[in-house]
């Protein structure tokens, strides 16, 4: 059993007949992911990329033994699509759709929590276990199997960093994007817990960015739990202009400056190795490994 997605995954694609849904169904299958059904309301009985399409998730489950879902439906319908997948017991549910109303995401995440479902996203590249399967839109060829778990707030930057690791001969256990929308299913702390308990992960890379407090929360968790696996990080946005503020209350609620420098400093304080530019990450991981072996 691999983390979140693997050979055991039998996924349905919600929104399979759309441009992106259909294109990435093909790429996911080429990578080795089992896509057992698709769902688009009103298109039941047709097929796309050789996959049977159903009108509802429930109808798809009458004919298949799916256990996961990936969602490409437009933002106005994403909350209900997510709930439909959760109702059917699918887990994890990956939501590629971006810009979902915060109120919808809030309700969806509460629903997922109540049902014990893991939501990856929204606005995520998805999740990949290199060499096994991917539920997502990431280009498979930049990833390679190995022991580094990667969690990111960004999509494309994840591919960038995975490709540096791969070129340096450092493979990855599981890579996932927690999602770029204001409200997401997983945060860095959730993923750090998963990687801590995952036997195939021996080091972790966190890819953060300016704004919010996900990095600071992760640093607190690493410190408080004396996190046993080495962690390296990159935080995007040092050169970016100051991010949007949500008025007084926004600044108050995060309780942090939210700048890249502040986040990098906090990571360093708790022993995380921090890259100045993404291309430094492979070297940092190698140094860390060497240091661990010496101990």
């Amino acid at each position, binding site marked *: 059993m691999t983390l979140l997605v693997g050979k055991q995954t039998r996924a349905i694609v919600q929104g399979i007949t759309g441009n992106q849904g259909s294109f990435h169904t093909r790429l996911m299958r080429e990578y080795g992911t089992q896509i057992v059904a698709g769902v688009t309301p009103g298109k039941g009985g047709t097929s796309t990329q050789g996959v049977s399409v159903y009108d509802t998730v429930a109808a798809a489950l009458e004919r298949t033994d799916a256990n996961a879902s990936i969602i490409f439906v437009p933002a106005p319908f994403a909350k209900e699509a997510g709930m439909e997948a959760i109702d059917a017991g699918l887990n994890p549910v990956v939501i590629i759709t971006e810009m979902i109303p915060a109120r919808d995401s809030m309700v969806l995440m*509460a629903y997922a929590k109540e049902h014990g479902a893991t939501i990856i996203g929204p606005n995520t590249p998805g999740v990949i276990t290199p060499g096994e399967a991917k539920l997502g839109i990431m280009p498979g060829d930049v990833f390679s199997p190995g022991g580094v778990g990667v969690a990111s707030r*960004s999509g494309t930057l994840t591919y960038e960093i995975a490709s540096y690791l791969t070129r340096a001969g450092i493979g990855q256990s599981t890579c996932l994007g927690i999602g770029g929308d204001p409200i997401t299913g997983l945060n860095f702390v959730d993923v750090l817990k998963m990687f801590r308990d995952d036997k195939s992960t021996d080091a972790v890379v966190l890819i953060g960015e300016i704004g919010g407090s996900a990095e600071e929360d992760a640093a607190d968790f690493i410190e408080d739990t004396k996190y046993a696996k080495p962690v390296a990080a990159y935080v995007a946005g040092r050169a970016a202009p100051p991010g949007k503020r*949500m008025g007084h209350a926004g600044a108050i609620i995060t309780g942090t400056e939210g700048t890249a420098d502040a986040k990098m400093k906090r990571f360093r304080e708790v022993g995380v190795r921090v890259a100045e530019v993404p291309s430094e990450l492979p070297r940092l991981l190698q140094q860390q490994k060497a240091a661990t072996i010496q101990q």
Partner: protein
Amino acid sequence: MKLFEYESKSLAQNLGINTPRGGLASTPDEARDIHKRIGGEVVVKAQVLVAGRGKAGGIKFGSKPDETRDRASEILSMTIKGEKVKKVLVEQKLAIKKELFGSIVLDRVNKCQTILASDHGGIDIEEVASKSPEKILRHRLDPVFGMRGFDARQVALKLGYGGQRLNALTDLLANLYRLSVIYDAELVESNPLVETSDSKFVAADLRVIVDDNSLFRHPEFQERSKEASAEVTPLEAKARENGLAFVELDGDIGIMGNGAGLVMATLDMVNHYGGKPANFCDVGGGADAEHVATALQIIQGDQKVHKIFINILAGITRCDEVAKGIVEVKKVVGLKKPLVVRMQGTNFDEGKRILDSAGITTLEKMDEAAQLVTSAKVA
């Protein structure tokens, strides 16, 4: 989308939230007339979207209509943090017993809405929050059931109120919450929320920020959302009209990429190698040729841009579409500035072939491309 104070208050009034009596003026004479109508002493407030207008001198008092006209004239000629003041709100001056702070805010970490409130309201609330955070009450709301009556009552009680005043403050908090639900606001904030000397609660100031991702279901904001925001430069406005996430910077290297994280990392790397980015431009996920062409034309149309760096790591975006967009610009209007293209990922081979046949070199590694674009070789 940030709403102006007068817009926020007009939504609030419809829900029965107390706001000071007053009116909106675009000229000094209008301000004087409003004062004549409402009488007493008034406050004249700059209508801007940036925060901190009080400290910048954008709030003044008038005891007589002529004085109000002069103060309005001063404020209407101001530019606050880059934002030109176009309107002022003229309101009755309240007899203040106490200044509170009350807010309903989207709490990303806890995935719910949270009430933030304090009996230390006023312009120094951020200082209060950082120096004595215990003075800010935080009360999380259930993400599904939202604010129940007792949620607001608990907060009002903790703020030290009882009897009639407890009920009045509870109602006001409940109405701020209703406003957040009806308009999909990520922030509804009243600071100060004034308790008047006759024990009424009045939203003396009110800020509302509507969740941009919810605008599709709010036809009432459709026209408003098209208006160029005062915080946006003309170039940014043009780019955003075309669906680009765009922030203008002061360097000379135009940047285009896909995905906010990658574009930020691109800026970081260009900086790292000694270059200065002229902009942040994210074409987003799944950009087609036309979208890329539009972005490239906007960037090369910017006078201060001397060279351009396109950095694409294709996932949902496809390299062939990006390449087609670049080639289209080359054909139609020509490439006016030296260009460095880095591409990798989905449909790379096809994208590279398209660019090769148009005589444009493609690099595969981001570092190499960043080093090249910041070097003297590209000028």
